[in-house]
């Protein structure tokens, strides 16, 4: 506790003021080292007369007129921002100051839940990350360790569960995306407080391509793939490009076709002995040597 009492007593003309100061100099007040945010508490004072109390920190600033010798009471709404505070009691020309902490309330009130990415391919190991910051009802970061449960529920009823313990108010997990495409609900929960994010899981790259060929009108060959799927059996989205390539007599012709309703189809010139292949991304499908049938 710091005391600051200017030596005005040396001046006889200020004797009256000096006496007031002496009374004020006896003023004492003692804050608890830590109070919980949003809690009611009181501080005893000693001395006599009126004084002003200032409580100042980056989180709050307040002023109270107090009667020395009486208790100073604080209500639940008075100090609710966690932080380090300085309390200054000014009585007459003297001031005293103390420091104390306001700690986050012990009841979680909200979670800052960051789930990324919002959209990803199926079957990605540790592809989804969830970070939770735990706040009390006043928006203070809860620094004491807390058990956090994470659940990633996919579209077909499967769920992954993970638990983590927060450190300095933060906990995180990494999870795999599900084998089946669809919206997954990613939830974090702490002591009954929860937050949910939706993760869109989309099919991955094509796993294989199978193509068939049959004659078409006008000396052409009609090519069509089977429904294209990823390695988990999910239909690859329409719009994915399939490249059909025909090699004949040293000439190479390529046609890029987007998937439509899961399949790609096109027509190429029907040349006997031509070699026709289909590919999408890095996946090469079957080869057909066209013999007119």
């Amino acid at each position, binding site marked *: 506790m*710091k005391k*600051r009492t200017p030596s005005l007593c040396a001046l006889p003309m200020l004797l009256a003021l000096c006496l007031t100061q002496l009374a004020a100099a006896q003023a004492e007040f003692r804050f608890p080292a*830590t109070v919980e945010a949003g809690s009611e508490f009181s501080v005893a004072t000693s001395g006599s007369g009126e004084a002003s109390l*200032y409580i*100042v*920190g*980056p*989180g*709050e*600033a*307040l*002023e109270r007129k107090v009667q020395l010798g009486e208790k100073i009471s604080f209500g639940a709404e008075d100090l609710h*921002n*966690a*932080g*380090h505070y*300085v309390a*200054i009691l*000014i009585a007459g020309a003297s*001031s*005293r*100051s103390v*420091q104390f*902490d*306001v*700690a*986050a309330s012990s009841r979680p009130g909200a979670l800052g839940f*960051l789930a*990324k*990415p919002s959209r990803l391919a199926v079957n990605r190991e540790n592809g989804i*990350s969830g*970070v939770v*910051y735990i*706040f009390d009802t006043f*928006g*203070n*970061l809860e*620094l*004491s360790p807390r058990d956090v449960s994470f659940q990633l529920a996919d579209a077909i009823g499967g769920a992954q569960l993970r638990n983590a313990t927060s*450190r*300095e*108010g*933060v906990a*995180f997990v*990494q999870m795999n995306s599900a084998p089946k495409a669809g919206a997954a609900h990613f939830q974090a929960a702490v002591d009954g407080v929860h937050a949910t994010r939706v993760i869109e899981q989309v099919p991955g790259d094509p796993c294989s391509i199978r193509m068939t060929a049959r004659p078409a009108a006008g000396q052409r060959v009609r090519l069509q793939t089977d429904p294209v799927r990823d390695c988990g059996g999910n239909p690859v989205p329409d719009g994915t490009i399939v490249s059909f390539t025909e090699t004949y007599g040293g000439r190479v012709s390529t046609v890029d076709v987007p998937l439509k309703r899961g399949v790609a189809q096109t027509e190429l010139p029907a040349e006997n002995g031509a070699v026709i292949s289909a590919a999408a991304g890095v996946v090469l499908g079957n080869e057909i040597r066209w013999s007119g049938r």
Partner: protein
Amino acid sequence: MKILALLSLAGAVLAAVLLSASADPAVRVAPMDAVGPRSMEPQTQSSVIRDYLLAWQTLDSALTQNRPELLDAVFVGKAKEKLAETIQEQQTIGIQSSYRPRSHDIKVVFYSPEGLSIQLLDEVDYDVSVSRNKQLLGSEHVRTRYVAVLSPAETRWKVRVFQGGTP
């Protein structure tokens, strides 16, 4: 006479430089090689510390001058809201407060997997003083710990959580 004036000016400039140099807090930063789960690039390491220290300077300017608009450059979210409320309360009461760090001992403890938040702990030594109409009401030397969470903005890291107090 002219020489005297020049000498006097030079002395004033030198004093200002020395004063500003002495006002710079000592800063110690723990190695960030083991920070996780995401590894930190050297450029991220230096920029997050630079922006955190700038936040302290801004905090001091905003609370000394009671100007909440100064907070916009470096604070965001809850941290900005709470500091702005404090400035409003200071204006209502008619006081100003200043926060002058003497030293920072900073340890980055978390860099989120997706790179969108960094948490650091700072054992900070600072002087806080409270005044009304330029008259000092009281001052304290403080040693405590701050927890800060920063998130990336357009050009710098901004402080989203700024909370003091011994755990």
